[in-house]
C-alpha cells in the first residue's frame, strides 16, 4: 500500500511541477512577444520619429517627408467618430441601465451590443460602404470613414455606460427621487456625475481602438496623398498610409510606416494606461 501511495504521490508531484513549468513558459511566451513587437517598433520607428513627421506631408517614393496629412486626417476622423458614437452610446447605455435593461428588448439589445462589440471591423466598413457610400454616388469621404469608426465606438460606450451606471448605489437614485426630482434630472445631474470617470474611461478605450483601425477605412475614407480638410472628400489616416507604405519596398516609405506605427502604438498605450488609472481611482472611491 505504501509503495503504491508513494508512487501515486510522486506522479502527482511530477504532473504538478510539469504543469507549473508549462504555465510559466506560457506567460513567458506572451511577454516575449509583447517585448519583441515593442522592440521591433522602437528599433525601426525611432530613426524617423522626428519633427518632420508632424510638419511635412507624405512624400513620393525616395523623397523625404512626414505624415502630417495622415495625422490630421486621423485626428479629424477619430474625433468625428467619437462625437457621433459616444453620445448615442451613452444614451443607449443609460436606457439599458435605467429604463429597459430588464425587459425582453433590453436583453436583446445587450446581447446584440456585445456581438457588435466583437464583430470584425471590416464588416462595419463594408456596412458603411453599402449603406452610405453607395447611396452618395460611390464617393469616398471622411464622413463615411468617421461613420464606420463611430460604429466601433458605439458598442464600447454602450457597454461601459451600462456597467458604470449600474455600479451607482441604488440609494442615490432613491434619495434623489424621494426629494421629488424628476427621473431625467436624476440621471443627468446625479447618476452621470457619479459615473463620469467610468464613462470617460469607456470613451478613451474606444478612442484607443479606433486610432489604429485600418480595415473599415479602406473603402470609406479611402486615403488621400495630399493634405485635405474637406470632410466630403477622400481623406488620409495614419494606418492607411502605413498599410500602403509598409510593403512597398521603398526604403523611405517603410521608415515612415514604422514611424507611424510607433506613433499610433504610443498613443494607444498612453490612452489605455490613462483609462486604466481612471478606472482604478473610480473603483477605489466606490469602496
Amino acid at each position: 500500500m505504501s509503495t503504491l501511495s508513494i508512487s501515486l504521490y510522486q506522479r502527482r508531484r511530477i504532473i504538478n511541477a510539469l504543469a507549473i513549468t508549462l504555465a510559466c513558459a506560457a506567460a513567458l511566451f506572451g511577454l516575449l512577444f509583447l517585448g519583441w513587437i515593442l522592440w521591433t517598433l522602437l528599433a525601426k520607428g525611432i530613426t524617423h520619429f522626428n519633427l518632420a513627421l508632424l510638419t511635412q506631408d507624405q512624400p513620393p517614393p525616395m523623397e523625404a517627408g512626414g505624415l502630417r496629412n495622415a495625422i490630421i486626417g486621423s485626428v479629424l476622423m477619430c474625433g468625428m467618430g467619437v462625437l457621433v458614437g459616444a453620445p448615442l452610446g451613452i444614451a443607449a447605455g443609460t436606457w439599458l441601465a435605467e429604463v429597459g435593461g430588464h425587459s425582453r428588448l433590453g436583453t436583446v439589445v445587450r446581447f446584440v451590443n456585445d456581438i457588435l462589440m466583437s464583430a470584425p471591423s471590416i464588416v462595419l466598413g463594408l456596412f458603411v460602404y453599402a449603406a452610405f457610400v453607395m447611396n452618395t454616388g460611390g464617393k469616398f469621404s471622411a464622413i463615411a470613414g468617421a461613420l464606420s469608426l463611430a460604429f466601433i465606438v458605439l458598442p464600447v460606450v454602450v457597454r461601459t455606460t451600462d456597467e458604470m451606471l449600474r455600479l451607482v448605489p441604488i440609494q442615490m437614485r432613491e434619495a434623489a427621487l424621494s426629494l421629488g426630482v424628476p427621473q431625467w434630472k436624476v440621471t443627468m445631474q446625479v447618476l452621470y456625475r457619479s459615473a463620469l470617470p467610468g464613462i470617460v474611461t469607456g470613451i478613451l478605450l474606444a478612442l484607443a481602438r479606433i486610432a489604429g483601425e485600418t480595415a473599415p477605412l479602406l473603402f470609406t475614407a479611402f486615403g488621400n496623398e495630399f493634405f485635405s480638410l474637406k470632410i466630403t472628400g477622400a481623406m488620409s489616416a495614419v494606418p492607411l498610409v502605413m498599410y500602403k507604405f509598409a510593403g512597398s519596398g521603398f526604403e523611405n516609405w517603410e521608415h515612415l510606416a514604422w514611424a507611424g506605427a510607433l506613433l499610433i502604438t504610443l498613443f494607444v498605450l498612453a490612452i489605455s494606461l490613462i483609462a486604466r488609472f481612471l478606472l482604478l481611482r473610480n473603483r477605489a472611491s466606490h469602496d
Partner: protein
Amino acid sequence: MTHASSSTQNPVLKDAADARHDRQFRWLLTATAVFVLVTLAGAALSMLWGGRSVLASEGLHFFTSSDWNPVENKYGALVPIYGTLVTAAIAMLIAVPVSFGIAFFLTEVAPRWMRGPVGTAIELLAGIPSIIYGMWGFFVLMPVMREYMIPWLDTHIGPLPIIGALFRGPPIGAGMLTSGLVLSIMVVPFIASTMREVFMTVPARLKESAYALGATKWEVSWDIVLPYTRSAVIGGVFLGLGRALGETMAVAFVIGNSVGFTTSLLEPSTTIAALIANDFGEATETYRAALLLLGFVLFLVTFVVLALARLMLSNLSRKEGNR
C-alpha cells in the same frame, strides 16, 4: 392667500412638465437603444443586398467552387472560406493552451506581486492595433519562417504520408501557417484575460477545501476551477475565435493573397477579410458585389460564433447570481 394658491397651482403644472420631460427622455433613450439593434440588422442586410446579383448568378456554386476569377466574372469562394477556417483553427490550436497556461499562471502559480504587472502587460498586448501585428509578421516573422521553419518542416514533416501534404512547399514565408501564428499571438491576450477573469470568480472556499485535502495547484485548477467555469471558458475561446475569423490587417500582410487552391499550409493563400481588404478598393461593380456577399458570409459565421460565446459566458454569471 395669493401666495398659498400660487404654491398649490405651480407644483401641479411643474409635475405635469416633469412627467412630460421624463416621457420624452425615455423615448429618446429607447430610440437610441433600438438604433443599436437596427445597426446590426442593417449591417447584415445591406451586405446581402449589395451582393444579391452575385448570389443570384452563382447560387450555391459560390460556396463550393474554388474558381475565383473576377476577369471572367466567376466567383467561387471556397479558397477564402477555407483559408479563413484553417488560419483560425491554427490560431486556436496554439492560443487556447497558451492562454490557459497564462490564466493558470496568473491565478495560482505566480507570486502575488507579479500578478498585477504581468496581467496588465498581457492586456496591453490586446490593445496594440492589428496592423502592427501585420507589419511585425511581415518584416520579422516571415523572414524567420522563410529561413528556418519552412525548410525544416519541408524536409522533416513533408515526406510523411497524409499529414505531410500540409507541410510541403517552397520557402516563401507567406501562408496560412504564418498567418495562424500571427493570429495566435493576437488572440492570446483576449482569451487569457477572459479566462483569468472567470477563474477569479471561483469561490475561495471551493479552492481552499481542495487545497486542505492536499490537492496540488494543478489539480485545483484542472479539477476544481476549470469544471466550475467550463462554459465561460468555452465562451472566452469562442470570443477569441470570432476575432481570429474576422481579423483583417494582421492577416493581409502575411497570407500572401493568392486565390489559387493549395493544401499546403506553407504556400500563399487568402482569407475572406484579407481578400476584401486587398481587392475592394480597385474592384469593378460585379466584383464588389461578390466581395460584399463574402462579407455577409463572414458576418454570419462570426455572428454565430460570437452569439455562442455570449451565451456560454452568461451561463456563468447566472450561476454567480449577477443577472
